[in-house]
Each structure stands twice: as structure tokens, then as C-alpha cells.
């Protein structure tokens, strides 16, 4: 299909430069109980291999599990109500491990349904499934937090909905409001798996992350734990390091937010919006010119590459600012190293002409995934606005999810704008984040 001897990477798979073979499967980590601060942990032992036959008929094959899950969900919901009264009056949960086993089972079923795992899951949430969930019930919980649990859970459930599964399975079926990350990843993964008998690493990691968050949200709502769901995509262990990408993101944000600039962020962004549009108009012409140059010479023109790179960096700085992923007011030049959330873009390299010619068509799957990710990014901005305004800082999990969305968007735009022919990596594990420093007192 191409004249460069390289293979077109499937959607969601970021190919290592000069490497056509898929990454080796991650070594299975030991299945340990979660730490004290981590009540719900996901364990990934999937080897990415998929059976074409079972993938093709997966929606039908999963039906018995969905029926069983529905009945169990009813029981889990009843148990949650009983526990709500138990905690409110005694401060402790009652009953055995029905809830935690339910969480494990629905994670298996969802992993199977959304192609994050290959084997048919055992009924009842047995051990050793390739995508496994380890949840530990927190017996003693705060009465006050429990009393208001349904209200407190709303933000987590909204974010869960953006991921494509909110985690609510309590008798009324799935609570899904949009074609979220899980759905988008499964849709794309289905085609790749049917043709290549293999799930792209990035899509699998993304699904595992979404499943983990959904399970946390469900655990919180079902009173398994009072620990609020953590949206940090870097917490799960995805196995071996992800492939390198010519466009990388770095984060040197200290999580502090200025309440004044948070409150007026939308208005403060207006001059950047104007400049973004004006510069964007010129950039469109530069991209078109770069397309012709890359198509005929095989390599982007250096000045055009620099110009478009600066715009992509500027756009990323801007979206980090308006999305509350970073605090300071960004500059207007897109200079590298000028903003806490920054892009490192490799110099122009030779690109596959076929990929260049059909770049827009090839970008459609990533655009689909990006639109789903932007829903989550919008919620990050919304929740970040409230936490920034009232607490003066941004929760690390939300910030890191925002960085992930920015990185994917930047890699996608870099791909569409001819800065690289490496497909964006859809897994949430390519971010390069500095250790957060202590949050200083803010005004």
C-alpha cells in the first residue's frame, strides 16, 4: 500500500519510528490487593491478540452475560440501598463481597464487549481475566459523605458518561448519554481486530483506562468505597512503555490556579481567540502548501514545518489555558518552552507519500476518537473551573486527563497538518509529566 516499505498503522496505534512489528505484550504484573489509598485497581494482562470470529460476533456472544449482569445489577442496587442505611446509622457497611464481585464481573463483561480483552469472561467475576479489577470494600465510611453520596457522585457520573460508561448498572441498565470513549475505541478496534486479529495497543489502553474509571464511579455510587474516583490516566499500569511519537507533550504545571484568572478565564482568552483565528487562516494556506511539498518531495518544507509547528504549539498552550489544564496566560508566539504545557515536535522527516495523499481520509478514525475525548476535556474544564475558583488549585487527576486530551489532539493535528505521518497514539500513557510541587497559598 505504500512506497516506503513501512506499514500504515491502524487507528490508535502509534508506530515506533522504523519499527513495523507491534510491541510485545506486557508482562503480567502480580495481582496484589490495592494499596490503602487505592480501593479500586485495574490489572492489565492482555496480549492484544484477538479472535476474528469472536470479535465479529461479539455483540451477540455477550448477550448472556448482559442478562446475568442485569440481574446482578439489581441485587447490587438493593445492596447499595441497604448499605446506605447501614452507614448512615452505624458508620459501617454490612454484607459480604457481593458488591466487589459485581464490580469485577461487570469490568470483565465490559472489557469483553468493548474489545479490551479477548477471552469469553467467566460468569460471576472469576480471577485471572486479562483485564481484571481488584476492589476492596471500605467497611467504615463517613456518614455525612454517604448521606449526600448520590449528589456528590454527579460529577463523577458525568465524567463516566463521557468515557462511555458511567458505571451505573444498578438495575436500570447502563447509564450512557453519548458515544463516549469506550464506544469510539470499540468501534474502531472492531475493524482493526477483524482484519488484523489484533487490538491496537493505544485503543486497548484507552479502554482499560475508561473501564477503570467507570468501575471507580460505580464503586463510589454503590458505597463500596468513599474514595472519590480518580481520573488520572497515568495511575493504571499499562505494561511496557508506549511507542515513541514525534510529537510529545510535557507538563510542568504546579496545579495552583489563580482564582481571579479562573473566574474571568473565558474573557481573558478572547484576545487569544482572535489571534488563533487570524493565525489559523494563514496556517490553512501553509498546510495546503505543505501538503503539495510533502507529496512531491516526500519531506515537508522546513520553514512551513516550523510555522505550522509554532501554530500547533500555540493552539495547545491556548487550549491548556482555556481548559484550565494550566494556569498562566499564554504568549502569542507559540514559542517552545514558554508554557507549562508544552509540545516537543520533531524536525521534518521523510513521509510516506500514500499516507500524505490520503491524509484526511486516514485521519477520520482519529477524529472520531478525538471528538469523544473532547467531551471529557470539556468536563475537565468545567470541573476545573469550579475547583480552581473555590479551592485555588486543580485536582491532579483532572489535570492529567486534560493533558492526555491535549496530547492526543496535538498528535492528531500534527498528523493532519503534515508535521508527521505517525498516527496519534490513543493510549493515555505517553505524557511526560513533572512531579507536582506543593501548592502554595493563593489569593
Amino acid at each position: 500500500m505504500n512506497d516506503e516499505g513501512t506499514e500504515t498503522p491502524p487507528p490508535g496505534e502509534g508506530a515506533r519510528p522504523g519499527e513495523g512489528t507491534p510491541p510485545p505484550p506486557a508482562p503480567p504484573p502480580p495481582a496484589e490487593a490495592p494499596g490503602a489509598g487505592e480501593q479500586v485497581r485495574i490489572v492489565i494482562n492482555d496480549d492484544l491478540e484477538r479472535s476474528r470470529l469472536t470479535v465479529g460476533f461479539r455483540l451477540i456472544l455477550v448477550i448472556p452475560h448482559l442478562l446475568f449482569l442485569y440481574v446482578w445489577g439489581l441485587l447490587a442496587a438493593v445492596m447499595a440501598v441497604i448499605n446506605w442505611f447501614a452507614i448512615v446509622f452505624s458508620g459501617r457497611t454490612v454484607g459480604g463481597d457481593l458488591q466487589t464481585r459485581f464490580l469485577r464481573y461487570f469490568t470483565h463483561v465490559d472489557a469483553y464487549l468493548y474489545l479490551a480483552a479477548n477471552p469469553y469472561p467467566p460468569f460471576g467475576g472469576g480471577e485471572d481475566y486479562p483485564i481484571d479489577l481488584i476492589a476492596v470494600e471500605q467497611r467504615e465510611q463517613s456518614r455525612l459523605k454517604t448521606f449526600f453520596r448520590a449528589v456528590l457522585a454527579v460529577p463523577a457520573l458525568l465524567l463516566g458518561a463521557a468515557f462511555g460508561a458511567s458505571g451505573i448498572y444498578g438495575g436500570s441498565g447502563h447509564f450512557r448519554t453519548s458515544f463516549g470513549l469506550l464506544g469510539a475505541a470499540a468501534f474502531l478496534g472492531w475493524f482493526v481486530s477483524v482484519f488484523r486479529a489484533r487490538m491496537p495497543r493505544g485503543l486497548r489502553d484507552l479502554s482499560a483506562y475508561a473501564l477503570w474509571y467507570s468501575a471507580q464511579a460505580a464503586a463510589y455510587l454503590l458505597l463500596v468505597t468513599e474514595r472519590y474516583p480518580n481520573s488520572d490516566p497515568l495511575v493504571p499500569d499499562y505494561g511496557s512503555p508506549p511507542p515513541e511519537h514525534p510529537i510529545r507533550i510535557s507538563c510542568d504545571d504546579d496545579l495552583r490556579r489563580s482564582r481571579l484568572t479562573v473566574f474571568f478565564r473565558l474573557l481573558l482568552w478572547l484576545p487569544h481567540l482572535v489571534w488563533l483565528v487570524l493565525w489559523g487562516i494563514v496556517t490553512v494556506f501553509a498546510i495546503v502548501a505543505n501538503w503539495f511539498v510533502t507529496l512531491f518531495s516526500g519531506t515537508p518544507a522546513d520553514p512551513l514545518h516550523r510555522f505550522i509547528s509554532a501554530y500547533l504549539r500555540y493552539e495547545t498552550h491556548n487550549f491548556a489555558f482555556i481548559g484550565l489544564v494550566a494556569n498562566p496566560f499564554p504568549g502569542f508566539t507559540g514559542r517552545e518552552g514558554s508554557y507549562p504545557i508544552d509540545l516537543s515536535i520533531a524536525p521534518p522527516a521523510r513521509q510516506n507519500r500514500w499516507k500524505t495523499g490520503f491524509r484526511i481520509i486516514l485521519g477520520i478514525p482519529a477524529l472520531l476518537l478525538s471528538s469523544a475525548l473532547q467531551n471529557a476535556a470539556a468536563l475537565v474544564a468545567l470541573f476545573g473551573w469550579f475547583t480552581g475558583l473555590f479551592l485555588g488549585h486543580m485536582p491532579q487527576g483532572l489535570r492529567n486527563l486534560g493533558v492526555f486530551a491535549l496530547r492526543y489532539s496535538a498528535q492528531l493535528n500534527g498528523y493532519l497538518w503534515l508535521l508527521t505521518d505517525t498516527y496519534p497514539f490513543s493510549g493515555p500513557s505517553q505524557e511526560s509529566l513533572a512531579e507536582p510541587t506543593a501548592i502554595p497559598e493563593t489569593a
Partner: protein
Amino acid sequence: MSPPPPAVRRALLILGATALAAAWIFAALRLWRTTVPSDLPLPNLDPHEFFTDAQLDRASSYEAFLRVDALLGSLAAVLATGLFAVRGARFVRESAAGRIGTGMLLGMLGLAFVWLAQFPFGLAALWWERKHDVSNLDYVSWIVNDFLSAGGEFLFICLALLIVMALAAVWRRAWWVAAVPALLAVTLLFAFAQPYLLPDLHPLNDPALEAEAQQLAADEGVSGTPVRVQDTHNLGGSPNAEATGLDGSRRVIVWDTLLRRFPPSEVRVVLAHEFGHLAHDHVLKGLAWGGLLAIPIALIVALATRRRGGIYEPTAVPLALFIVVALLFVASPLQNAYSRRLESEADWSALQATHEPAAAKALFRRFTRVARVQPTSPGWATLMLENHPTIMQRIEMADAWRRLHPTTP
């Protein structure tokens, strides 16, 4: 060639400053002139001839609150920028934007302070207007509109600071000489573009009124000027109209609330008044007057910010903003006086075009009945707040015009 000795330099400086001041005064006097006869004998009419005691009392108590509220709001803006001048430089740490970008951020944050300071007064004014059925705007809509309309001010200050700080990079001390014409040019551009930026505009639906409007425009020497209706009934319900644009973009904008609530004869007067503004180039003259005021303000800003490194340094922006806001507050009597002169000229032009002093009087009386505008206002309010002649002054002008044209009914 050696530089001139200090005494000569000082003399040249004084000479230049004197010439500049003379030119400034000459230009101000030229702009001050209007076509209203300077010897027009205005009768001293008694408001009780036109309004009942109840109407006068209602308008008086209604306007008293709004005047105090507006004055306090202006003072709050000055205080807020004063506070920001002292503490604002610390917000430099919230920027990664370089010199000019940081200046823009500080400028916008200064306006954010002003917005926050004026917010309670704006809310109080809305509460008062709603209480007296002058406005039907709900609080949420007002807050959203007020917040979003601040966006335009944010953008404008960014542009102004971009120009000023870029010029300061070239002329560290004399930037103000170039900044005033540059800012004036930008303002002219905005004045030209403004009619195209207004939302919810449509032509007059009434063909008869459209024909009358075009006849009035021709009578006042601005034939072909379009009249557009703006749908503002969701923005509070108060009636208004305005003349906007320059040259080819000139428009008269009438709010649909005015067309709904005022009879055709009074709408004609309003249209003639707005055509009068365009016929006498009031948009341009207003800009020129603003430009004149901007010269001393820019000079004072340049002198006052020198200790902070001049406007070249972003940390000087909070102080510059405070000086501008404070000077505009101090200069508001002059600005209001000029505005009142232009409004009087537009009234006179309308009378000359319509020959309907009775309709004009009826219109002005309706302002008091509908919008509770007080027919007269205290001296301090006239000085600090009023940019239109009082209702009684406008009625007196209509009366004076009728006396000059006794055959007119």
C-alpha cells in the same frame, strides 16, 4: 553638531508646549461650535405646565436613586483601579506571555476589577428599574449580558495596550505622541465597522414610515441613509435609537421597543434627531473630541508611569489604567457638556426637518411618563452624569423653535 544648550532646549520645549496647547484650544473651540443659534431665546417654562405633581414626584424619586447609584458606581471603578494600581503588579506571575502579553493580561484584570466593583451598583440599578416597571430584564440575563459585554472592553484594552506598548518599544518616553493618532485610527475603524457588528437588525416593516424616513434623511442632507430596526425587546424593554457608522457604513438604528410604544409622529422626531447626528458628523466629532481629551491623558500617563519604567513595562499598566479611569472621571463634566451640545444640535436639526415642535414636545413628555426621566436635574447630576439636555431644556428648545416659526401649528 553639538546639542543646543539647556536654556535653548527649555525655551524650545516651552514654545512647543505653548503651540500644542494653542492648537488644542483652537481645535476644541472649533468642535464646540454647533448650528444651534447662539442667541436662541429659550423660554423659562415651568415643568408643572407639562407634568402632574405625581409624575414629577415619581420621576424625581426614581432618578435620584439611579443618579446616586451611577455616581457611586463610577467612584467604585476609580477605587478599584486605584487598588489594582497598588496590588496589580503581583499578577505578573500569572502570565507566561512576554512583555506585551503580560501587559494585556494586567489590563484585562484591571477591567475585571472594575467589573467586580461596579457589579453591585449595576444590580441595584436593575432592581430599581424592575421595581418601577421601567425594565423587565431578568437578573440572570442581565448578569450574563453584563459579563459577556465586558468581553468587548477586554478586547479593546488588549488592542490599545498592544499599540501603546509596541510604540513604547520604539519611543520609550515619547510613545504618547504616536499613540494618540494610532488609537484614534483604530477607533475610527471600529466606528466604521460598528453597524455591521450589531446583532438582530432588520429593515423597517412599515413602508409608509420607511418613505417618511427617507424623506427626512433627504431633508437633512443624508439621503440614502438606511434605517434598521434592532430587536431589543428581550433586553429590558426601554426605548432607544442611535446613529452609528461613518461614511458608507452610516445607519440609523431604531429599537423595536420604540416602534412598538411610540406613535408615528414621535417616531418621526426620533428618526429626524438621529439623522441630525449623521448630518452634522457627530460620530466623527465625538471621536475627534475624544482624541483631544486623549492627548493630555496620554501625556499624564507617560509622565506618571516613568518611575515604573514607563508603559514599556507591563508592571506600569495597572497604574496607567488607574490614571486613565481617574482622569476620565474628572473629565466627565467636560465630556458630558460636549455630548449635550451635540444632542441639542440634533434636536434642532430634527425641528428644522420635521417642523413639528408639538410632536417633539409630546415625545419628550412621553420620556418622563414611560422611562421616568426627570424633567430637570440637580446641578451636580448635570455636571457629572447627564449627556443629554434635560427634558425641560428640550421642550424649551421646541417651544423656542415654534416662536421663531409662528405659522407652524
